[in-house]
């Protein structure tokens, strides 16, 4: 039994965390096991999940949103994180002038609101009043322009790239910090060994920042599977065109709160939220137990 003062000191944190995190989480999981029967709430066991995964009325939308979500995540992993690492490597080069200015410029979009970003990019890419068509026209590439946000084939990728534009500053900063923490003497030892430039990056710096890249990957995963706001701001809750940009967040929003003619269903909404929780939990567990244990953290 811990001493009483330990409990007293722990109490505020535990109470606040329970009230705003643990209780809502478990209540959501509980709510997913009920359904509305007229005005009554009845216990239905796992029936909501059965409908979500198997009933075509729900499952088509669910699998569509899940698939889109994976694509959204993949774009971030393949575009945002490598660019973030590359930018950090460039920024940490001692010969780069105005590094602080670039660092700030690249990081600024991160602190902008989703609403501004979504709306601004909608305007930029608009075929009617956007500046993208005229900019492409100015360099003679107008033929490349398409209403990217309005085409089913491009819309999700375009939104993912907008999100990459907004958030590339975060991996950049984390990697930049990791690169700065590598002792100068190790790089000089490499120089004496003939390992300079690109070789120094691949053979010395990259292995030493792998733990940071791991952390960034898991942050990207959690962030992407919880994403909602950018899609909502740019495409609305229907995640058009024809649900091609629908991800789990927007699907959950429509289901839980209702949208236009669709009535809100807190029970099915909770089932979706529980499924999202499960997916993220599995992803994080794979990372923690499968990957992070193999990454070594180095002391310098």
């Amino acid at each position, binding site marked *: 039994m811990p001493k009483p003062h330990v409990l007293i000191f722990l109490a505020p944190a535990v109470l606040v965390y329970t009230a705003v995190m643990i209780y809502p989480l478990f209540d959501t999981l509980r709510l997913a096991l009920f359904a509305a029967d007229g005005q009554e709430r009845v216990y239905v066991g796992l029936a909501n999940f059965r409908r979500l995964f198997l009933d075509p009325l729900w499952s088509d939308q669910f699998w569509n949103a899940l698939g889109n979500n994976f694509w959204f995540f993949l774009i971030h992993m393949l575009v945002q994180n490598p660019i973030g690492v590359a930018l950090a490597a460039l920024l940490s080069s001692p010969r780069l002038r105005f590094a602080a200015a670039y660092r700030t410029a690249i990081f600024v979009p991160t602190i902008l609101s989703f609403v501004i970003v979504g709306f601004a990019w909608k305007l930029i890419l608009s075929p009617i009043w956007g500046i993208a068509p005229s900019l492409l026209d100015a360099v003679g590439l107008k033929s490349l322009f398409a209403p990217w946000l309005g085409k089913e084939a491009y819309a999700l990728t375009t939104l993912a790239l907008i999100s990459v534009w907004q958030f590339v500053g975060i991996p950049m900063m984390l990697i930049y910090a990791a690169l700065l923490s590598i*002792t100068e*003497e*190790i790089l*000089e*030892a*490499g*120089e*004496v*060994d*003939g*390992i*300079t430039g690109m*070789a120094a990056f691949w*053979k*010395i710096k990259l*292995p*030493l920042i792998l733990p940071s890249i791991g952390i960034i990957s898991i942050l990207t995963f959690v962030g992407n599977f919880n994403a909602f706001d950018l899609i909502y701001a740019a495409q609305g809750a229907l995640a058009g065109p024809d649900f091609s940009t629908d991800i789990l967040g927007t699907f959950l929003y429509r289901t839980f709160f209702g949208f236009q003619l669709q009535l809100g269903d807190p029970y099915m909404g909770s089932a979706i939220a529980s499924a999202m929780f499960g997916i993220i939990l599995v992803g994080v567990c794979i990372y923690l137990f499968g990957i992070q244990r193999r990454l*070594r953290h*180095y*002391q*310098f």
Partner: protein
Amino acid sequence: MTALTLENVSKSFGKVEVLKDIDLTVEDGEFIVFVGPSGCGKSTLLRVIAGLEEATSGEVSIDGEKVNGIPPARRGIAMVFQSYALYPHLTVQDNMALGLKQDGAPKARVAEQVAKAARMLDLEPYLKRRPAELSGGQRQRVAIGRAIVRDPKLFLFDEPLSNLDAALRMNTRVEIAALHRTLKASMIYVTHDQIEAMTLADRIVVLRDGRIEQVGAPMDLYNDPANRFVAGFLGAPSMNFFERLPGTRAGEVLGVRPEYLRPEQGGRLRGTVTHVERLGGDTNLLVASDAGEGFAVRLFGQDPTRVGDDVAFDFDDARALRFDALGRRMR
């Protein structure tokens, strides 16, 4: 063949001149120690030789070849860093092999060189370990091993023992001396520790404020210093300087090492003991003299003198060194 020649080497960082007109020749197989107080430029000089810094002016030649502008890896040098600077993500074996691999050396030669270095430094049981799993002394040996495998014409050591505890420092010092005898390679060693300098060096280079004060064999510097700085820098406790002894002219300074003072009734140095250090083998006394000049005395063996005792010492005039007002030796 000369292993290293420095001609008029200067180095400035912006407006700060760190090295001023350094001239030095190191013969093949020599063990040279750069010694001096912090900020004297000894590490910078080593980095200029290594190629980690470029000399602002002057010429650096290694093994008869001018190396200004040539990157460190192609200068035929190997360096051991103060913090060891091992690659934390690589095993001992890979740490030693990385440079050769980068050079494109054939696998068989890499394996052979690593095995040879591991044998020489007793690292064989640890080849598969990473630096984090090694003790400080073992890491130090890996860093030396990484230098050996490159078969360099010139070894550079940057205060390699300063992160080790006293006992280990002594052992490693002996090992480095043995290594020098085995490899017969030219070595340059930077330290601020005069014991390391005295015990390891064939020749010592004493630096101050970016200039070479004196170059010579340890005992030559000890017995025959060119100026007051070198005289005071080598030896512990350091040399005593007297300006107010009877018989010294104005502006002249008399230097006497603490071990050359002998107790003598009515001697020229009289005073009161202010501190006693009993080291077992030696006893060091700090004395405030009646003339107002403090001095140190080193007595061999154990001595019963206590703080507050009135004492008197004298010395052989042949043992005293005379310096002028600018600190230059007067012969």
